[in-house]
């Protein structure tokens, strides 16, 4: 293939000769000047003098909607429309999950409108399809989530093919296929394939294996839940303490602000899918918060941040504080900082945390982060977006509890209500998700998929219970699950009991057990047997059953406990059943 500079020379040399003139208009939402040059050059090579009209930057809609626009004036034979995946991604970022699921449809409607416009009936429309950009918000799980960017881009490319069958004048320029071809030069080695039967290049194997294990780990409950951000030169360009509110680089105006704006859009999408966003910054708190409150180009707002630590303590101390407030493992946290010194200090002191080696150039941040696929997941529910709110509320609760000297008074003051329900098609995704996420308060750590939960719900012998918890500060949503299976006619075995650590120390365990006994009794059982299977993370519930009045069963290979239902006295709690 000729280079762009070779094409430029060809245009200069050849354009005067008597080539056939073809009128082409190019309408795009990105900088397309050099693409126009290349088209004219290749045109000459193929024997055409391309009379090319290039619409003003980013005016696709206007050019088509306005019948007096330059596009219609120019009266081209061929109209090339190049709407970029990047701009589509920006639009995707600005929508709610429901709107995101409609993104492809919205764009397809626009293309259909162009193609069916009578003024353009005699024109050939050459429409660029969309090379994929996996934003790794869901990892491979994006394939299961209709609102994900990957899902919408693939749907769009597929439906564009169908649209081109419907409209005679629509031709798809397959630059998605072109990106695949250029990528395949790395993924595939023809000489190796010919002499073996290997369709993946040796260099691609570790990447492919890594995606496989991303999925396995996510299903086993090892995935990232929290992203901790440094601020200066990570979230915005420059140093807020030195450069001031007007001096930091953000948005499409100053310096490389665009890189930081797009980075923030990515963080915001992570937040909307349930990743907890925190800040750890060496700054005065007031100074650090100022851009969040006042800078017009900040995508992230204070509302998006669950825990905001800005002070002159070390990053290590601040990350430890965040960990204590959130009560999740360090291994489920990612820390992003542009400063290699800070990164190393955090790595040395908190080995479990993931600290990506951010590239020096902020322009490279996103593509680098995409390559890591940090946020693979095995479940998603549309309630995930509320998680940040719940942690912010938790911080309020913590401060209220300090004003009560008596724990019971504090618990009463919370006005707690719990909805108890079996598994339904509405709560199945959340139940499955919690079974994958819960590590600490989880007695047997059995992981369930949506399909598993559905099967349990349909099994009449299984006693399945889910619990929500709401208090005067807000709704925690579904936070606890119990699955009991008959061991014999008189005995129920607790296959699963887990609870979100967000609701520890509220008497939820007592409420749960009261409910379990009530259900078991109604079904005619005499005993409940519980079992504790230790993992590296669930030491918290080692004494769970003995603490609730179960008796240790002697002589079993695992730790098992039994409760006599007849003798059971309901345990004290301040939660009202709804």
């Amino acid at each position, binding site marked *: 293939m000729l280079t762009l500079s070779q094409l430029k020379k060809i245009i200069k040399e050849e354009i005067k000769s008597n080539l056939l003139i073809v009128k082409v208009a190019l309408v795009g939402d990105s900088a397309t000047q050099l693409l126009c040059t290349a088209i004219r050059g290749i045109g000459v090579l193929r024997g055409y003098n391309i009379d090319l009209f290039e619409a003003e930057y980013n005016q696709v809609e206007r050019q088509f909607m306005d019948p007096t626009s330059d596009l219609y004036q120019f009266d081209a034979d061929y109209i090339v429309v190049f709407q970029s995946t990047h701009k589509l991604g920006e639009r995707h970022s600005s929508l709610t999950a429901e709107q995101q699921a409609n993104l492809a449809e919205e764009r397809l409607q626009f293309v259909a409108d162009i193609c069916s416009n009578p003024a353009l009936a005699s024109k050939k429309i050459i429409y660029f399809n969309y090379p994929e950009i996996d934003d790794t918000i869901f990892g491979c799980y994006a394939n299961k989530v209709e609102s994900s960017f990957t899902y919408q881009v693939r749907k769009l490319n597929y439906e564009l093919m169908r649209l081109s069958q419907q409209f005679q004048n629509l031709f798809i320029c397959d630059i998605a296929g072109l990106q695949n071809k250029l990528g395949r030069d790395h993924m595939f080695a023809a000489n190796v394939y010919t002499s*073996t039967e290997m369709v993946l290049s*040796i260099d691609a194997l570790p990447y492919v294996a890594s995606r496989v294990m991303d999925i396995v780990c996510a299903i086993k409950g090892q995935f990232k839940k929290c992203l901790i951000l440094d601020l200066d030169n990570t979230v915005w360009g420059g140093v807020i303490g030195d450069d001031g509110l007007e001096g930091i680089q953000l948005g499409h105006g100053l310096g490389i602000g665009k890189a930081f704006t797009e980075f923030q859009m990515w963080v915001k999408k992570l937040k909307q899918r349930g990743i907890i966003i925190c800040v750890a910054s060496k700054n005065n708190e007031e100074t650090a918060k100022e851009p969040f409150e006042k800078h017009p180009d900040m995508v992230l707002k204070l509302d998006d941040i669950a825990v905001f630590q800005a002070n002159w303590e070390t990053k290590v101390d601040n990350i430890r504080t965040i960990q204590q407030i959130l009560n999740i493992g360090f291994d489920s946290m990612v820390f992003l900082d542009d400063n290699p010194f800070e990164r190393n200090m955090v790595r040395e002191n908190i080995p479990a945390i993931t600290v990506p080696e951010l590239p020096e150039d902020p322009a490279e941040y996103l593509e680098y982060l995409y390559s890591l696929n940090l946020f693979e997941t095995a479940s998603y529910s549309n309630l995930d977006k509320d998680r940040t709110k719940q942690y912010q509320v938790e911080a309020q609760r913590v401060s209220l509890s300090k004003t009560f000297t008596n724990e019971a008074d504090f618990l009463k003051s919370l006005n707690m209500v719990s909805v108890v329900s079996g598994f339904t098609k509405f709560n199945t995704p959340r139940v499955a998700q919690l079974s994958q996420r819960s590590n600490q308060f989880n007695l047997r750590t059995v992981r369930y998929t949506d399909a598993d939960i559905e099967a349990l719900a349909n099994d009449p012998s299984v006693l399945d219970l889910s619990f929500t918890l709401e208090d005067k500060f807000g709704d925690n949503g579904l936070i606890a699950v119990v699955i009991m299976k008959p061991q014999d006619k008189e005995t129920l075995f607790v296959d699963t009991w887990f609870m979100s650590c967000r609701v520890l120390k509220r008497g939820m365990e007592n409420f749960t057990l009261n409910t379990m006994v009530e259900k078991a009794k109604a079904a005619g059982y005499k005993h409940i047997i519980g079992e504790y299977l230790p993992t590296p993370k669930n030491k918290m519930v080692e004494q769970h059953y003995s603490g609730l009045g179960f008796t240790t069963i002697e002589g079993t290979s695992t730790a098992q406990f039994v409760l006599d239902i007849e003798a059971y006295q309901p345990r004290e709690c301040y939660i009202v059943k709804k």
Partner: protein
Amino acid sequence: MDTNQILADVQEIFRDVLDNEDIEINFETVADDVEEWDSLSHIQLIVAIEKHFKIKFNSKELMEWKTVGDMIDCIAAK
């Protein structure tokens, strides 16, 4: 590059890829002489050699080699 130097480099690659520091190869060495050198590790050797010498073998060449010497000649010719 002279063939002895290539042989020395290739030997290093063999040791690294096959994970055996004791491997000694010469121009007459064939796959049967080296225990770890099977069809799968062969592909890894090829890719490592291609990277090291910044060359590309075609599939016909890969099929035709009988000895390390054939391989070295092929590298030297690139």
